[in-house]
């Protein structure tokens, strides 16, 4: 199994779509077995999961956006990606 590390390049898994909920305007993730409303932090991570950007660069980009240092966001980003991956909503390649 490929493990999730700083050089992994996460992307939305096959068949997963990110869109805005037309009723609330809030972001949601659509996937084969359902709908997952997203909080702002998860959305910020997912829009950076291009399949090109590494986890390390996603952390840098988020730290810049939140005007904080990378160490502050690292644990949350890794935890969030690990959970999404467990549910097969995010896939990774190295």
């Amino acid at each position, binding site marked *: 199994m490929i493990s999730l590390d700083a050089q992994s390049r996460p992307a939305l898994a096959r*068949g997963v779509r990110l869109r805005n*909920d*037309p*009723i609330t305007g809030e972001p949601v993730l659509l996937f084969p*077995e359902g709908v997952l409303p997203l909080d702002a932090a998860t959305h910020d991570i997912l829009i950076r999961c291009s399949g090109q950007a590494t986890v390390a660069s996603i952390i840098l980009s988020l730290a810049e956006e939140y005007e904080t240092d990378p160490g502050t966001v690292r644990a949350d980003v890794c935890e969030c990606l690990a959970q999404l991956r467990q549910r097969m909503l995010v896939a990774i390649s190295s």
Partner: protein
Amino acid sequence: MNYRPYLLLAELTHSCPLHCPYCSNPIVYPGGRELSTAEWRRVFEEAAQLGVLHLGFSGGEPLRRADLAELVAAARAAGLYTNLITSAVGLQRRRAAQLREAGLDSIQISFQSDQETLADQIAGASAHALKLEAAKVARELGFPLTVNVVLHRGNIVRLEQIISLAEDLEAERLELANAQFYGWAFQNRAALLPTRSQIARAVEIVAARKKQLLGRMEILFVTPDYYSERPKPCMNGWATRFLTVNPVGDVLPCPTASAIRGLRFDNVRTRPLAWIWSQSESFNRFRGTEWMPAPCCECPMREIDFGGCRCQAALLTGDAAATDPACSLSPHRQKLASFVESVQEDPAANRPFAAGLGRLSFRQNPH
């Protein structure tokens, strides 16, 4: 409270090439003509306006509708995510490519077991080989794949091999759905409910394989409510997130709600979906907590499990408003408990599936 549906299950037809004895379809099918292409298109548009984001095509077997690709395109045009829930009988390459072209997002294929002979005995049809082929085609065309296996006494002993099958098929998801006892499954429950030790073993196997397959395949498994102390939070509460439209256009808060005698369902041919969702008697009957009897109405869990399943309460107690007997606090718990105990002592419980075929009634198609 403002309720809003997210998911629509469109049961396109009750016709199916399989005859699984655990089918949750009603034993007595509703009368009337199947909805037309144009009527379904209108349902999808109304559903999207109401807030639905996700659509499951189900049945019976949705591939039996010649206009399925047209319906997929209509649902996509309405902005819905589309998932095909299928036996895969009839999913040849050309048909699958046509559905891909129409915008179908994902495919869920049912398997009855990993072994062809057993699988076909359970399905009451020669289907296993076709399913294997269809799963391969689905992957080659780039569809995400969910494998769904209804678990019961006849196949739970094959759980390890079933998980390996889903892994070999490169499925993203494996739904191990313990048979739920509605419709045909309720009639056959004495032959279908696994024993307590079979369930305990299954829980161990699933935990180990989940860990091993992390990031490759998600395994979904919920301990069956017949073996739980607390009921399942059925449909996440009556009429809060889900809509089912059956083949003739009746709108149901859950796919098995026709098990509740005396509950009348409104139809998309005579009422707008929005009215049915917000105003109809059937959708409001068990919404919220005001309908609840004791002990539910005083229970701290009442907004967590919603008193369990209304259909199960109706089937086991005759009263759809009773506490689900899957709850240990239900005054009717004994009805469920004595049935569960009878299964533990059943000398047939550990015999092979084929030995018990005579005890089962297999699902029939509508005439």
